[in-house]
C-alpha cells in the first residue's frame, strides 16, 4: 500500500480523517485545559503565600 493510497482511504478520506482529526482536537483540549487550570491555581497560591510572607515580615 502506497502512502497516497493510505491517505486516500479508498475515497473516504474526508470522513475518516476528519473523524480522527476531531478526536485529536477533543483529546488535546481535554488534556490541556485542566493542565493549564491547575498550573494557574498553583501560581495564584504561590503568589498569595509570597504576599502573606512579606506582610508578616514587615509587621513583625
Amino acid at each position, binding site marked *: 500500500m502506497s502512502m497516497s493510497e*493510505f491517505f486516500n*482511504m*479508498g*475515497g*473516504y478520506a474526508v*470522513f*475518516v480523517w*476528519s*473523524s*480522527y482529526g*476531531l*478526536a485529536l482536537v*477533543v*483529546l488535546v*483540549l*481535554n*488534556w490541556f485545559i*485542566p*493542565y493549564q*487550570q*491547575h498550573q494557574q*491555581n*498553583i501560581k495564584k*497560591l*504561590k503568589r498569595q*503565600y509570597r504576599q502573606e*510572607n512579606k506582610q508578616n515580615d514587615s509587621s513583625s
Partner: protein
Amino acid sequence: MFKWFVKWFHRMGSPPHFYRFAGSWLPWLTVLFALLTVAGLYGGLVLAPPDYQQGESYRIIFIHVPAAWMSMFIYVVMAICGIIVLVWRMKLAEVVLICSAPIGASFTFLALVTGSLWGKPMWGTYWVWDARLTSELILLFLYLGVIGLYGAIDEKRVAGRAVAILAIVGVVNIPIIHYSVEWWNSLHQGATVTKLDKPSIHWSMLIPLLLMALSFKVYFIISLFQRVRAELLHRERNSRWVEELFRS
C-alpha cells in the same frame, strides 16, 4: 480484605492523599496511554484489512465505538459517585462526579459527530431521529445539564447533591442507549462486540478496537486526575495541606 478496602476507601477520600496519589500516577498513565494509542492506531489504520462491505470507511469505528462506550461508562461512573455523595456525603466523590461531566460530554460529542461522519457515506445521511442516535443525544444533554446545574447553584455542597440526583436519575438512559438497536427499528447496526455469544467481528479488527477502548479509558483517568487535582487545590486553598505544599 473488607477491612483493608474500607481503610483504602477512607484514605482515598482524603484530599491531600488523593492529590499526591493522582500526581504520582499521572506520568505512568501517560506512558500507558501513548503505548495503547500507538498500538491501536497502527492495528486499526495499517494492519486491519478493509471491510468487505464498507471498504476503508469503517475505520471510523476505532474512534466512534470507543468514544460511544466511554460516553456511557463515564455516566455510570457519575451515577455511582452520585450514590456515594448522597449516602456518605463524601467530598471527593462530589469532585469526581463534577470533573467527569466535561470529559463525558466530550466523548459523547465525539461519538455523535464521528457517527454522523460515518453515517453520511454509509447510510446517505448525517442524521436520523432514530432511537440510538436520539438517546445518545439525550445523553449529551444530560451531561450538559449536570455541568449547567452545578454552575447555577452557588452553595457548592447543595450543588453537589443536586447533580448527584440528576446523575442517578439520568442513568436510566444508559440501558436505553444500549438496547435501543434491539427494541426499535434503527439504521444503526446491532451490537457486534458486547453481546453474550461470540463477538461477530474479526480479531484483526477486534484487537485494535479493544486497544483503542483501553486507550480511551486510560485517557479518561488522566484527564479526570488532572481535573480533580485542580479542583481539590481550588476548594482546599485555605487548608493546611495546600499551604504546606506551596509555601516556601
